[in-house]
């Protein structure tokens, strides 16, 4: 017989698997009310996401499935994160990633997908949004103690900004402390290599795999 705690955790998993943001948020609040360890709740969610991610990789599910599940998890996270802080605990995360579209670029969908999928895969993500000046990337990397910075550029004119950020990283002595990954329609493998980035991937799910590889280095 399932006890109330198990039922709540099961409902949370269900919310993720059914991409139900409302249910995810409601159940997250129940987790807090029922004094369930929020870290257990988060593990249950990332477990569900991992399964969905694997199914996507096998070709059994679609990109909207992955995005839907990530969105549901993102709906529940703020409530759980707040509880974690209140308890004085710390959320284990795979690493901290600063994400943004470079200065001059307002294309947001791909970047937002990457941020969502990274969060769902257990990374702590600081999404700086779009049109991000190199200064802001540097500040965020410093203040978040980022392990990875992920930049996107979708126009051939904005892709040069990624090079600028690389130069700023070197100037401020941060280059060794953070891994750099780049993406976006205007970015190529060659360009990533030329500017000295640590990795490049043209798709959102690929970006997550790349982040996993980079965090292990």
């Amino acid at each position, binding site marked *: 017989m399932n006890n109330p705690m198990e039922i709540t955790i099961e409902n949370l998993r269900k919310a993720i698997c059914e991409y139900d943001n409302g249910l995810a948020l409601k159940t997250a609040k129940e987790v807090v009310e029922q004094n369930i360890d929020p870290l257990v709740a988060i593990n249950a969610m990332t477990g569900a996401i991992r399964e969905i991610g694997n199914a996507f990789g096998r070709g059994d599910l679609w990109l909207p499935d992955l995005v839907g599940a990530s969105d549901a998890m993102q709906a529940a996270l703020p409530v759980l994160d707040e509880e974690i802080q209140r308890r004085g605990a710390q959320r284990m995360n795979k690493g901290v990633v600063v994400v943004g579209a470079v200065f001059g670029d*307002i294309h947001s969908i791909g970047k937002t997908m990457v941020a969502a999928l990274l969060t769902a895969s257990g990374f702590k993500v600081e999404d700086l949004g779009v049109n991000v000046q190199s200064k802001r990337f540097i500040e965020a990397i410093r203040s978040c103690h980022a392990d990875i910075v992920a930049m996107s550029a979708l126009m051939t004119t904005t892709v040069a900004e990624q090079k600028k950020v690389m130069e700023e990283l070197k100037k401020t002595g941060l280059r060794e402390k953070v891994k750099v990954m780049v993406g976006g329609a205007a970015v190529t493998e060659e360009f990533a290599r030329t500017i000295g980035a640590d990795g490049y991937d043209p798709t959102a799910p690929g970006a997550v795999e790349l982040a996993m590889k980079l965090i292990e280095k």
Partner: protein
Amino acid sequence: MENYKKLRVLSNNETLRIHENSLKILEHTGMYIDSENVLRTFSELGLYTDIAKKTVTFPRKTVEKCLEGIPREVPLYNRNGALSAELGKGKIYTASGHNAIYVLDYERNERRNATKEDVGKFALLSDYLPDIDIVGIEAMPQDVKAESSLLHAVDAVFNNTEKHIFFSPERAEVAAPIFDIAKIVLDAGNLKKMSPLTCQLSPTSPLTWEKGAIEALIETAKRGVPLCLLPQPFTGVTSPYTLAGHITLHNAETLSGIVFCQLINPGSPVIYGSGWSTFDMRTANVVIGSPETVLLRIAGSQMAEFYHMPYHTIAPDTDAHVMDEQLAWEKCATAWGAYLAHSDLIVNGGMFSTGLTVSFEQLILDSEMFSYIKRLSRGIRVDEDTLALDVIERVGPKGNYLDSEHTLKHLGKGEHWEPMVSTREVYENWRKKGMKDIVHKAHEKAGLIIKNHRVVELSDRKKKEIQKVIRNFENSL
């Protein structure tokens, strides 16, 4: 009959519903414009703007009035000011291009970044090929400053072809010097009467005009340069996953561009553009060779027909990365889609890999494909002469038409298409000649053209002035 009937995939009622929904979207939701200045300009021109939300909405009457005023035909001129195409009169025009990043290296057969020299060579090939009417920017040179890449590309193209050029800037600061270069080449004070280039611009789906694009639109419309409005939403990402909804969003965005142009410069030439793309939800990638894009090419042309304006689309397109059968059938299907749609302007000769890579061989092959569909579009001429009743009766049973005057009269006059590189020989002869496949033959042909074809050079004065424009632009960065 000649002048084949265009294929339809939408009924008249369906076209009307899409149009009506587009008007609703423009009236109630509107477009986001990332520039307060531009918003103010359009507010003064009669649109409803919300500066705080950065949106503009379009009264129905304004949209309808603008649509009434657009020219039904758009003439295009070459570098010498001579008429080279008339879009909207029923003839198909085909173009090389457009904006790729990689080149499949001619010598090494490896993918590498495109260079300015490549762009010049593609233009030279395009200049030679009789079935390339208009020359696009085949690739964006990666060996020059990123910000001035397009200026260098346009420079390379103007120096290697006399044909009309097709280009797309990302912002006004780049468009303006390119228009200056066009004036230099034409030796004219303005481009209104005979523009040697057509500009292509895109909103950012859904329902957004970025600062760069909208400012470039204003610069283009002001000058009366033909403008190809080309939204490019991806199904299920930046537009509805369903095709009818996708067409509607595309249409609304196109209408917004038309209205902007007509308000800035009433009667300025516009082209209904399309780069139909769907999004593969398994691989998270944009595709342009899917059967849906074939349907969309045809549906889009019906919307353009509804508005009585010339239609542009992309073809032949493929998502294959090598010259295999997938490449061949996707290119064939998409080219046929464009042809069955009776497109006025078809751009993308030379591309594969979802428009990221180009090669000299592919341009030769796509030119062959353009040639094939142009023959299709000429149809079957039926008259006294072609019915050849008297010839049939004269030659009679057991006769032979090879030596008949009728046959001789029609040789080489267009009744039968002649390929440039396709194989037509019997096996034995083909084997004796080296068993070359079409890619091999295209490779050889490309080499010969680049080696031997010459274009009249621009005068030293024009070349110097163009370099000055580029230098000034780069110094201002």
